[in-house]
């Protein structure tokens, strides 16, 4: 491998934004047929580096070498023409268009007179979708797909051209285990074709499963490249965050309190049926399931965003109706939504305002917003969650993906709710912060909060939960206590093959 010319080489890249030196003299290279991991904390500069490579940002200094040639890529188009395909961290899709058109966005096959060659387009797309083993077809409107499937559409783009290098920026952040397998197959086959792959992820197990080498960035600086086979998680973490991680489960054993939330036979149309469960003060309940299992919908119903078609919700033993999110908040329920860009943040607003948005009515000095109190809250959670930003005035849209997620979490933690629901809380969060968030969740429980964690990451569910509720096809299939759960039984429960006693969900 070493005598080959790299597929892609970066030398001394510098990129600054107002107030941030996002990249500071970064150099590294990717060999053909290699899967090269790029790791670093949230805000370390990974996405920025890749955007420089993809022609979206222009570097302030340094050069990019593709094959042997130094290149300047002023536009995304040019990067594509040079064989660099970029799968974005944030979904980059046109929801009104079909799957096929999105996959071939910007390079629709043409006939004479600028006409779209639909036949070719659909044929090629169908072939790609076949490889990806997805359940939708080329003509589906992308807006109708779930986030995970949208991510698969994004990934499908890697297969459209003869790429020299493919960049995957956190492709698994919103995928469940089933799709991950497919993704790894795709990566393996690209690798076999001699394509160089840059793979960005915060999930150590993936990194160690599929990559050949690991490069680490920290605060915009290049910290070195390790051979995956010759290193350990601890070493990588050490390089990334400059210290060792404490992965032991903090403050796990404490007394559980009364039942905070009880749900009886809750249904919402075809989305989920007859859900019954309880959450006690001091308890963390994990929800685990495949995409479309209906976990998010339950959370949304509890948060007053959907009208239940049947069933009861009891808070502190009192039956309640939750009319709206405002109502839910006033009753002490908070929801960290799964889609931070659409649901969690006002991207054009600054960090502080985003964080205090749900409680801005309560932070008053006379008729006005008490800025001091707001800044205090922001500072508290910035420190607690280690949010990397030049200051509260920074526009949230300019933060790195992981730091955005932390703002959302901070926003709901600062509400000090009775029942906290977190939907995919660590999507896109670096290992250090992730364990901090896990600890935080445990800590909250220890302080007496009732917490529901929805996650598609099994280790996460296993790690934080006192009990785990498995869902399949809109129904709760099984509830596990922390001591009785095994990976196998969990997988069976979420794929509908466990417990003959449980009613089989109707196919819908």
């Amino acid at each position, binding site marked *: 491998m070493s005598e080959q010319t790299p597929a892609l080489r970066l030398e001394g890249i510098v990129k600054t934004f107002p107030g941030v030196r996002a990249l500071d003299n970064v150099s590294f290279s990717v060999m053909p047929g290699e899967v090269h991991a790029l790791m670093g904390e949230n805000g370390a500069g990974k996405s920025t580096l890749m955007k420089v490579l*993809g022609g*979206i940002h222009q570097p302030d200094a340094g050069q990019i070498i593709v094959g042997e040639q130094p290149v300047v890529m002023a*536009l*995304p*188009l*040019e*990067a*594509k*023409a040079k064989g660099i395909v*970029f799968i*974005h961290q944030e979904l*980059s*899709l*046109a*929801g*009104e*268009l*079909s799957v*096929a*058109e999105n996959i071939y*966005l*910007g*390079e*629709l096959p*043409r006939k004479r*007179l*600028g*006409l*779209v060659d*639909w036949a070719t387009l659909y044929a090629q797309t169908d072939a790609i979708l076949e490889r990806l083993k997805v359940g939708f077809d080329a*003509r589906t*409107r992308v807006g109708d797909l779930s986030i995970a499937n949208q991510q698969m559409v994004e990934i499908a783009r890697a297969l459209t051209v003869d790429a020299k290098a493919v960049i995957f920026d956190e492709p698994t952040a919103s995928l469940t285990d089933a799709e991950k397998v497919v993704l790894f197959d795709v990566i393996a086959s690209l690798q076999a074709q001699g394509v160089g792959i840059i793979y960005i992820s915060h999930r150590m197990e993936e990194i160690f499963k599929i990559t050949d080498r690991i490069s680490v960035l920290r605060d915009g600086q290049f910290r070195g490249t390790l051979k995956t086979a010759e290193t350990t998680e601890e070493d990588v973490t050490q390089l990334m965050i400059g210290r060792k991680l404490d992965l032991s489960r903090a403050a796990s054993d404490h007394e559980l309190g009364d039942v905070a939330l009880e749900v009886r036979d809750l249904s*919402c*149309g*075809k*989305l989920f049926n007859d859900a019954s469960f309880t959450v006690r003060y001091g308890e963390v309940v994990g929800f685990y399931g495949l995409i479309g299992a209906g976990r998010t919908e339950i959370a*949304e119903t509890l948060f*007053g*965003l*959907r*009208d239940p*078609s049947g069933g009861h919700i009891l808070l502190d033993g009192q039956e309640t109706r939750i009319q*709206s999110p405002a109502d839910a908040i006033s009753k002490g329920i908070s929801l960290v939504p799964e889609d931070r860009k659409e649901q969690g943040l006002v991207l054009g607003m600054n960090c502080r305002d985003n964080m205090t948005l749900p409680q801005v009515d309560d932070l008053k000095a006379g008729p006005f917003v008490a800025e001091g109190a707001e800044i205090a809250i922001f500072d508290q959670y910035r420190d607690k969650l280690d949010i990397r930003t030049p200051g509260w005035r920074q526009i949230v849209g300019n933060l790195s993906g992981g730091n955005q997620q932390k703002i959302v979490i901070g926003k709901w933690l600062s509400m000090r709710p009775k029942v906290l629901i977190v939907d995919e809380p660590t999507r896109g969060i670096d290992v250090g912060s992730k364990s901090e968030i896990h600890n935080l969740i445990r800590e909250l429980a220890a302080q007496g909060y009732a917490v529901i964690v929805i996650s598609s990451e099994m280790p996460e569910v296993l790690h934080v939960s006192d009990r785990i509720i498995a869902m399949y096809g809109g129904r709760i299939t099984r509830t596990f206590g922390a001591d009785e759960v095994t990976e196998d039984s969990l997988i069976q429960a979420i794929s509908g093959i466990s417990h003959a006693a449980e009613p089989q969900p109707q196919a819908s």
Partner: protein
Amino acid sequence: MAPGTLSTFLKRGAIWGFILFELVFFTIAGEFLSLSDKAFMDLDNMLLLFKQSAPIGIIAMGMTIIMINGNIDLSVGAIYAISAIVLLGSMTWPMFAGLGDWVIPLSWALALLTGAMLGALNGLIVWKTGVDAFIVTLGSMLGYRGLVFMYNGEQPTSHLNWTLVDFAEAQFLGLHTPTWFLLAATAAIWFLMNRTVHGRNAYAIGNNREAAVNAGIRVGPHMMINFVIIGFLAALSAVVFYSESGSVNPNDGELYELWVITAVVLGGTKLTGGAGSILSTFGGVLAIQLLRKGLAHIGADTSTVNLVIGLILVAVLFLDRQLNIKGKEELRL
């Protein structure tokens, strides 16, 4: 079939339902309120409906693609007036004196070229300065109107050429000349948006501009082309209409932008871009003309007409919303 055309057609069925409602309503109300012995749904009257929809309709086709692209054009009324002036003015220019009726195609071409160029100017400014299309065209709505007045002061520009009038008033296969132009424009734009790469890219740009840029679509030229097209269509509308009427007041076409946008939005095109259908715009145009005609048919007075048109717009939106509600399970946002 291009993606989603049929399903969006049905989903945006509100406009066709509304047209049906208008037809039924005015037919029945006409029985009691109209002076005329003729039914509202008389064939000739329906043929007139299409013809009378042409001036707004042709421009609305252009506006649909502009709005799908995520922009807006408020200057169409002014472009319409300028093109009309070029059309009628150029017929009397001394340098064309010897041409006889051959001046007609020449004037047509000049007018269309003018429209396309004014559109291009809008597009170029939007592209190169990055100023929002709303502001750029709000400005040129005023600026182009200024140009209109420069040509002939406050005087109308007139040239009644009876050959031209006869051509414009002609009926071929029962349909009037303007109707043919309206249908042709609709077909062409439908084809453009559903069959060509340019059209699909325009959808992508309006839908998610960042994604389009990331995918390497060049946003600027596509926007520019669409502005050229709407300029051209505004001119075509003027050419068709003024061939028949032969005289243009400098304030003709005022408020057209609002009527055109209304028709387009009634047809279900989103103001935020990315979604919209040419056929539904056609429906929106018909619905508006039908409303005007129907109210005239039953003899409503001015204040009633204003009141009713306003309320109907709101009612159609409401209907559309009811039709598109997915059910109780929907997220309450």
